[in-house]
């Protein structure tokens, strides 16, 4: 039931982007992100079981959404100690881009690869809904497919997406251009009611210092097909492919 990989054509002057998607017990959006990556790059991502100690040669590492280890203890806390995470950190230090979506973002904060933490939504409920995001920094491999300040509409689906960090860290993130996305209105304004989960400073996604690690709560992979209600996530994956192939 999955897409057959698009065979490389002569138009593909560069080698298609190679992505590795880490599968933890309890991951559940790996299929969604693999579809989006495959559609954008023409190459099926490698799926790597969390107990592996090594990764294949790849241009991008993805930690997908889901409930790794049931999110028992704390969201992402146990997955952060999976064997594969040591290798993910090593690759990240060498500059391989790492993308954590939703539960993947939670794992990255628990693993210390991104600062701050994700608290329960301020409604204390799970929220699945389309939200608008402002692209705060498009000068990265992850966001180059968007214009600076562009507003996009993508879904969220999480219970614990309320980003928080101490104010020094927040100031640093702002000052260093490490806020990737912020929740906003359809017209790009910031109002409390558009901050879906109550995140501090409406932060939806952040980069590490070198902007090679991105964690974000919303799901651009679920907005890549016009039939499924939106295509604003296509720019995300097209930008990645353009930057990394």
């Amino acid at each position, binding site marked *: 039931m999955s897409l057959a990989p698009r065979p490389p054509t002569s138009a593909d002057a560069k080698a298609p982007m190679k992505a590795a998607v880490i599968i933890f017990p*309890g991951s*559940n959006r790996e299929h*969604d992100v693999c579809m989006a990556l495959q559609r954008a790059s023409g190459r099926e991502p490698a799926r790597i079981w969390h107990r592996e100690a090594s990764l294949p040669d790849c241009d991008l590492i993805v930690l997908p959404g889901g409930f790794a280890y*049931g999110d028992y203890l704390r969201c992402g806390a146990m997955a952060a100690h999976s064997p594969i995470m040591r290798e993910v950190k090593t690759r990240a230090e060498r500059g391989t881009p790492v993308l954590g979506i939703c539960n993947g973002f939670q794992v990255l904060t628990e693993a210390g690869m991104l600062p701050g933490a994700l608290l329960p939504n301020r409604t204390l409920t799970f929220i699945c809904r389309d939200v608008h995001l402002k692209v705060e920094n498009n000068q990265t491999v992850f966001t180059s497919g968007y214009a600076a300040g562009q507003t996009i509409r993508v879904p969220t*689906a999480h219970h614990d997406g309320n980003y928080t960090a101490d104010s020094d860290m927040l100031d640093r993130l702002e000052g260093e251009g490490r806020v990737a996305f912020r929740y906003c209105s359809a017209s790009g304004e910031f109002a409390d009611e558009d901050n879906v989960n109550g995140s501090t400073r409406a932060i939806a996604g952040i980069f590490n210092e070198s902007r090679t690690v991105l964690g974000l709560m919303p*799901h651009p992979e679920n907005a890549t097909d016009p039939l499924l209600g939106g295509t604003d996530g296509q720019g995300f994956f097209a930008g990645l492919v353009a930057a990394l192939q």
Partner: protein
Amino acid sequence: MGGSNVTPELAAEMGLSAEEFERARDILGRIPTLTELGVFSAMWSEHCSYKSSKIWLKTLPTTGPRVICGPGENAGVVDIGDGDAVVFKIESHNHPSFIEPYQGAATGVGGILRDVFTMGARPVAILNSLRFGSPDDPKTRHLVSGVVAGIGGYGNCVGVPTVGGECQFHPAYNGNILVNAMCVGLARADRIFYSAAAGPGNLVIYVGAKTGRDGIHGATMASAEFSEDAAEKRPTVQVGDPFTEKLLIEACLELMATDAIVAIQDMGAAGLTSSSVEMADKGGLGIELDLDRVPVREAGMSPYEIMLSESQERMLMVLAPGSEEQARRVFEKWELDFAVIGRVTDTGQLILRMHGEVAADIPVGPLVTQAPLYERPWLRRQPGPDIDPATLPDRDPLDCLKRLVASPDLASKRWIWEQYDHLVQGNTVKRPGGDAAVIRISENGKALALKTDCTPRYCRADPVRGGMQAVAESWRNLTAVGALPLAVTDNMNFGNPEKPEIMGEFAGAIEGMREACRALDYPVVSGNVSLYNETSGSAILPTPVIGGVGLIADAAKAVDLALKQEGDALYLVGETKGHLGASLYLREIEGREDGLPPPVDLAAERKNGDFVRAMIANNHNLVAACHDISDGGLLVAVAEMAMAGGHGIALDGISVQELLNTWLFGEDQGRYLIETRAPLAVEASAAAAGVPIKRIGKVGCSELTLSGATIAEGQTRQTPGMSGGPELTLPGAGAISVAELKAANEAWLPAYMAQG
């Protein structure tokens, strides 16, 4: 086995009547042991044996050219072409959810997921059907909150989208809420797994979570009325672990890709008892289990407790010879318990051993075939008289409309479905909130349409008509998104079957369903019965929930209810007589619940539906939006289309003579609204098909001036065009802002849940 001190009194405590206990003793030729008594009690409970309902269920149509597997297995299986099959079932978790709403609802979802992936299908969608008591009942808010969180907590974690459902309120559910969960899965038609054990000597394997003392005798609890002490039954409610379920899904599907599994059965109600008995019975064989080998969570569990535990996330399998190591590797990879606990035999006996002793030795055949079967007395209540609409006071239709869209049953359920991940797996074409959810099957373009339906107030007023209407509305909802309805799963929620009038409601609903399923070629392929939904003698409304599954050849052609384009015409398909008996208008506006439900003309239903489906499938995109007309009638349906699309609508095709609340709010069946940009083509096709159709309005702002009609009560409505935004305009009655309607429609549930 030693002497048994089991008495008829103990049997009665476990729910067995004196005659049933006698029969068990005859089958064994001796007094049962405690473990054996537990097995008989669970297998012969209403929940497992269907002893009150079976003779009626057998009268439903269950076959059809596409049906691969009808009722009797874990779930129904229907052929959808290209070698694919859709596997689905609905199941109730009413009693546990009332006692412990979060875990009761969560494990309801877990149980129905297992029924589907047990058959080799990957679950692709979850739906539900919820009934709560009056919003004014002090428990209701807590129950809504817990049930919704439980359904979401389980479904979200396992990564199966919860795409649709329904939620209604009525005081008759104050002491007995209904939580029905439906799961839909996809499999290859030639890779369906069944539960019949085969091959004497083959190993019986236990996989999944460990067995604890939770949920012991849950099936028996679900087979009795509640009294005031319902909360004391909390220990009989199971606790769910969706993470383990997710691992179990992946592990089972991984092993199912090989040829290792001969038979598989999930441990649901009555746990290891019903799973082992069903496997042995279906295979005509025996099973021997060594209960010392069952992975347990607590020390010192007795054979009785192990056999009756309803711990969740467990499966029983029979493996092909030589497959043990292969299977063990898969389950160890997923960090699940795996234990060889017995083997298949050719003796026909269920033999349970523990601590070197035989705890039970029961002939499986008689245990199943001699299970009690009751033709309970039933009484058909004469439906009361219908109402005389001429006696109803005149009321401003737009005021009534605003009250109706903000009433509990019609108010937006966004607060609920936003707590469900309805997008995971990346195939959700039409999200919750419309007539039916649409899930893409594969990139080659097919899709499934899914919906749950029932109108209990109709079933109370006239069970036959109500049963018929539930099936018809399900069929209509699938048709309204462009799907061909294939088959249904039913969840029969009723009161105490030992009361003739309740049994009469059951028999009547079955009769109506049977007629409708036949007329619409819409067979029942799986289902569940939940009886004894009574507290202190007060029964719920009869609620036969229909879970419908339809097929769309091209997912891109699925339509929804949102108005799309200014200038398009809006057509009413089907005949309107203005039936207000048992309507929501009558209940919400007049405060009355009397009258008869609308008649269901199945021939017209089919003809109108076939016409609408053909229009939607037409290659010229004739239909921009479509909506079925049900609760609240025509004007509510128009408003729902306007609210979904954010467009205004001028109902300039409604004549002054039709400006009657019977016409605007009547719930006549077999009707649809379609938006089209090609009125002539639609009219010509309708004429050719002999389908009554009427242009009732135009999408967009009104160019009307108020016509001559007057309104009875004080004229408070605004003049069309005054609100500045999109409006719903009713010539002769003024206009109402779509934003105002939407605000009223969206506000009720969040505001209600925020109180207290």
